[in-house]
Each structure stands twice: as structure tokens, then as C-alpha cells.
């Protein structure tokens, strides 16, 4: 019979109960939730660039909606990341610390961009002067989310130190 590892939850019966009820929460929750900010942040930049290329304003609107999706889901990713760290990687871990700092920076930039676009819906439609900073913010989101997810990916799928031999099948 499967038993659940409760390490990291000593003295917290309500959380122990949650983990007993759904042991997958231990490792699945963060990898599942992070899909959303990763793709929404990418899509924000991607659809903004499509708008700039085509001039079709509906793509700019989609970019804004995806930015909203990214802003809404990033805190969930940060919180589940903290829980995953606590449950699965006890102690300090340099990669996780860096990932955490980058995530907060990503959230700050995304919230700034969202607030800017909400206050000025024409910020990308009239791309001149300071509005270029908004575009730079969107481009920074993609860069940041890529770097952050790279470190997360390296925890899940570490690169082999030495690849297997070739010519064997």
C-alpha cells in the first residue's frame, strides 16, 4: 500500500491530511501551475509582436488578456514553488533561490505592464516616446520567464554530465 512521505510537515496536521488525501500535491502542483505563467507571458509578447507586424488590433487585445492571465497565475506558481521547495528540497538551494528572486521580478514587471496597459489602452497602438518602454517591458517578460523556467527545468531534468555513447541501439 502506498504511504505518503510527510517530511517537512511535522506538526501541521491540516497539511498532513491534505497530503495524505492527495499525495500528488507533493510534487505535481508546482509543475502543473507553472505552465500558465510561462505560456501567458510568452503569449503576451508574441501577440504584441504579431499586432506590430500585422496592425490587427485584436492581437493587441489578446496580448493584454494573456498578460492578465500571467499576472493572475504567477502568484500561484510562486506559492506552489515555495511549497515544493519545502517538501522536496529541504535546506537552501542556490538554483531555487535564484528562481524565486527571478519570479518576484517577473511578477513586478508583469503587474507594472498590466497597470500601464489598463491605464492607457493605446500604449502599444501609439508606439512612440515612453511607450517604447511598455514594449520593452513585454520583451523583458519573455526573457525573464524563459530564464526562470530554465532553472526550474534543470531541477526536473538535469542535464547529463556525460551523454550516453553513440552507435548503440
Amino acid at each position, binding site marked *: 500500500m502506498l504511504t505518503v*512521505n510527510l517530511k517537512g510537515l511535522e506538526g501541521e496536521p491540516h497539511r498532513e491530511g491534505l497530503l495524505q488525501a492527495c499525495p500528488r500535491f507533493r510534487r505535481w502542483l508546482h509543475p502543473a501551475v507553472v505552465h500558465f505563467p510561462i*505560456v501567458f507571458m510568452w503569449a503576451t509578447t508574441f501577440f504584441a509582436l504579431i499586432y506590430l507586424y500585422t496592425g490587427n488590433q485584436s492581437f493587441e487585445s*489578446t496580448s493584454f488578456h494573456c498578460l492578465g492571465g500571467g499576472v493572475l497565475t504567477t502568484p500561484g506558481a510562486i506559492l506552489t514553488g515555495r511549497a515544493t521547495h519545502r517538501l522536496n*528540497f529541504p535546506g537552501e538551494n542556490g538554483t531555487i533561490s535564484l528562481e524565486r528572486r527571478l519570479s518576484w521580478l517577473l511578477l513586478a514587471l508583469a503587474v507594472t505592464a498590466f497597470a500601464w496597459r489598463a491605464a492607457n489602452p493605446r500604449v502599444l497602438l501609439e508606439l512612440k516616446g515612453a511607450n517604447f518602454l511598455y514594449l520593452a517591458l513585454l520583451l523583458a517578460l519573455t526573457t525573464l520567464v524563459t530564464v526562470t523556467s530554465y532553472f526550474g527545468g534543470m531541477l526536473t531534468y538535469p542535464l547529463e554530465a556525460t551523454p*550516453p555513447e*553513440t552507435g548503440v541501439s
Partner: protein
Amino acid sequence: MMPDQEKKFTPGELAGADGAPGRPAHVAYEGRVYDVGVSELWAGGQHMGLHQAGADLTAELADAPHGPEVLERVPRVGVLAAAQAPPASASRAVLPGGSLGRLLKRYPLLQRHPHPMLVHFPIVFLLAAPAFSLLSLAAGTLSFETTAFHCLCAGVLFTPPAILTGLFTWWLNYQARPLTPVRRKLVLAPTLLVVSAAALIWRLADPEALRRGLKGPSWLYLGLLLALVPLVVAVGWYGASLTFPLHEGDRGG
């Protein structure tokens, strides 16, 4: 150190090296014993809250998202005395010869990462399509429906590459073994593609499919979009069960 000079660990000695305070953290793989106590990923003798030091992990590594090559990062400290090493892990990447093998050897990132990276996109886009559609119906804001359409387009575009990289990962890292999660994904992923493509074609042919409100065939269109949710969740679930298997190794603490 030559193999015949290496320290021989009895199963009992190995079990004692469980990483508990004051004790080393060793694991065995295919008869060889490694000191994982030097790795921060094995703090306290545990890895990912799932694998415990002091054990032979040959079988468990078959289910891991990485190959046994990661053990080359830690010192090899001996061999397991009992000559009962289980068969080689079947999840180890076996590189082909020729230019593909050279490419994969030069860029190991291409061995395991393309599929996990790519699947993010169809998963989120195909969940976002019904979500923004429902938001459009609830809020009466047509731009949400357009966003749903754009997400549907992106989801349909990203699904074939996700399937292809999944087949490649299965062939390279699991030797195309008929694993239950993979067999289910082989049915579910094409179904997902067909359903999402059908919804996309419908929306292209009738841009007002959802905009004129829910009546008549619009319900069927919405049904197609909503059907994406269980399909995506099921495909993602089986994928996660390969990456993060839940099994007897999840010992009580």
C-alpha cells in the same frame, strides 16, 4: 580506483548510509554505490521527497525524468556486495548512430527537454480557449471571444510538434516500450488534435459561432471547446505520471 579495489558494501551497510544526521548518504545503481551526500539535491538523504538514500535505486531510476548519468556528478565509493544487480534501466537514453546521435551528444538538452518544453503551449492555449470563451459569455465582452479564438489557433498549431517530440522522447528515452501512460497518450493526444482542429475549422467558417449567443449549433461549438478541458487534463496527467511517478518509493517519514 579499480573495481576490484573498491569497497564492497553489504545491503545492510548500504541501508545504514541513509543520510540521517551523522550518517553518510549512499545509493546503489546497477551494483555500484555512489555518495549522494555531496549533492544539495539529496539534503537529509532524500531526493525530491521520493527517493531515500541507503537503497538500491536501480529500479526507481527507470521511472525518473533523468538518466543514470547524473550519478557521474557524485563520487563512486564502492560496489554492492550482493551480485544481484537488476537489469539496466530502460529509461536511459540510447543514442542512435550517425548525425542524429552526434547532434544529441553535442546538445544533450535535445535528448529530454524538447517535449516537456513544448507541451506547455498546447496545454495552456487549449485550456485558455474554453476559459476565455466562457468569460466572453459571462461578461458579454466580445474581445474575450477573439482571444479564445487566437488561443485555439495557437493550441492547434502547437499540438502536432508536441506529439512529434513526445514520440521522439518515447523512442529515445523509453525505447518505445508500451508503457501504460504512453499508450493512453497515444490515443488521447490525436483525439485532442482532432477536437481542437474541428473547433477551429468551425470558428473559421462561422466567426459568429459564439458571438450571437448560445442557441442551436452554438451549444455544440461550446461543447467542443469544453471537451478540450478533460482531454488536456488527461494528456497532462499521464505525462506527469511519467515525469513524477507515484509509487511505493513514496515512503512514510
